[in-house]
């Protein structure tokens, strides 16, 4: 592990005995992100199928509703230093589980006879949590963890909500599933750079 603060070049100091373990952890986390990217794509497809057309139609472009506590990866994300990118990835992955849980609860009312969709939404929340924790472990091992406490994601009961109709709820669920896919894909890309020993 490099002693330079924030450095993410695990190959810089090969005399560190923990290096092979860290490299293994990075590869493992990258593999997990790769797998979850596929699952996230499948979840999105399954979600749109259960909302009915036009959700599954090509060219369907609902308004991209902002979601509290989470936005899509910014266009400038790729230009950030790798530690900062991974910190943003970890923060997004930590914010996703309560959002996915909320979508699952709403879908349990709208599509009670879709147990697979409900199970996959539940799995997605768990997987996001696991991937986020793994990324934070990697960051901590590299000495690049976020400083100070991370802001808590909005708690379910504490957040005021506009009473939304069913259609906006469907659109919002689509947005959350889309964000999940974008962030796991982004995490896979960022970790991939770490695996290949790219510049910090």
């Amino acid at each position, binding site marked *: 592990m490099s002693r330079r603060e924030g450095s993410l070049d695990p190959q810089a100091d090969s005399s560190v005995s923990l290096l092979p373990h860290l490299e293994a952890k990075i590869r493992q986390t990258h593999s997990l992100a790769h797998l979850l990217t596929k699952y996230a794509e499948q979840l999105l497809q399954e979600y749109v199928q*259960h*909302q*009915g057309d036009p959700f599954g139609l090509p060219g369907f472009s609902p*308004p991209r509703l902002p979601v509290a506590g989470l936005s899509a990866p910014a266009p400038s994300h790729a230009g950030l230093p790798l530690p900062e990118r991974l910190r943003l990835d970890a923060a997004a992955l930590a914010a996703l589980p309560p959002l996915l849980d909320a979508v699952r609860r709403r879908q349990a009312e709208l599509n009670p*006879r879709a147990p697979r969709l409900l199970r996959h939404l539940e799995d997605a929340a768990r997987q996001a949590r696991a991937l986020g924790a793994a990324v934070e472990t990697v960051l901590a091992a590299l000495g690049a963890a976020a400083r100070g406490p991370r802001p808590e994601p909005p708690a379910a009961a504490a957040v005021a909500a506009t009473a939304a109709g*069913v*259609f906006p709820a469907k659109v919002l669920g689509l947005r959350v599933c889309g964000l999940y896919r974008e962030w796991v894909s982004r995490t896979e890309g960022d970790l991939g750079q770490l695996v290949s020993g790219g510049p910090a």
Partner: protein
Amino acid sequence: MPAGRPGPAAQSARRPPPVLPLLLLCVLGAPRAGSGAHTAVISPQDPTLLIGSSLQATCSVHGDPTGATAEGLYWTLNGRRLAPELSRVLNTSTLALVLANLNGSRQQSGDNLVCHARDGSILAGSCLYVGLPPEKPFNISCWSKNMKDLTCRWTPGAHGETFLHTNYSLKYKLRWYGQDNTCEEYHTVGPHSCHIPKDLALFTPYEIWVEATNRLGSARSDVLTLDILDVVTTDPPPDVHVSRVGGLEDQLSVRWVSPPALKDFLFQAKYQIRYRVEDSVDWKVVDDVSNQTSCRLAGLKPGTVYFVQVRCNPFGIYGSKKAGIWSEWSHPTAASTPRSERPGPGGGACEPRGGEPSSGPVRRELKQFLGWLKKHAYCSNLSFRLYDQWRAWMQKSHKTRNQDEGILPSGRRGTARGPAR
């Protein structure tokens, strides 16, 4: 008009939507800050309607006044653009829609009615729930496994499809006292079933019914009254063994153990056996096996593999007069009859029901003769068992004689295997 209790007024028959645990900074219908864009609101939001009824809806645009206009707006329903003649402009900012003779909803999450701007962008949406109130569920049947639980199944109302999510709730109570209880474990043996795992009383009748509810109303089945003891079933008999009967090539012996879960209760078990040839799908059933744990199958084909299963009906528990309910069949057990040099005779104890060619006239006549003998002669020891023993002895001596005389199975003479003369 479909039967069933009428629900709330159709167009306002929706529950208030639950609060989403998210802060929506911008929802469809609220203007976006600083964008200059316009959004809209559809009314009514998420209506519930009967199949065949009509819907009048409006899409009201607000936002940038100079840009907000009803001209150019259009509607889609489930992604399909609706004919312009169904819409009309009410005023500069409101487009109305009339849909007549609505069909049932395409998906349980509701049909997506969307208001679009001229450029195709989505301004607002509303989900339509078009369907029927539930009809009375019927044909409730229940059974108890070893008197420990109760599982019930029912058929949804006559037409089944309501096009709306319909919730079924199985209720039960003790007949003369007690409060209503609701079953909680659904879909245990199919989509319309429920399992009550514990805390059931014996020797006292239960009343059981099913309530069906959807956005358009509810319906209740007739009440079924039953005593748990009258609907008992049990596990299949364990330890089913099938074996040959000495050298008899047309018989197999089947033995089993009575189901252990009910061994402490007084009951008269009935058993049924079914068997089939290995490469056949046709089962033959032996159903006159009362309160025994063994049976001999006769009239079988020699040199053939048979699959055998047994099931149990624990009728008469604690004096119940009802028929009881058959258990599932035991796992198949296989055995083969010995090979034969000649076709075996037909018939025997635990005979199959018809169709078996070797349950022929000889054996039938012998059975009748033995029955007559028992009535009119002092031959209480005569039985098929004795007859089979005699047959086994006959076959043995027949083989030995053939070997001595060098007779081949086909009846032709061959080289003797015995010592040279």
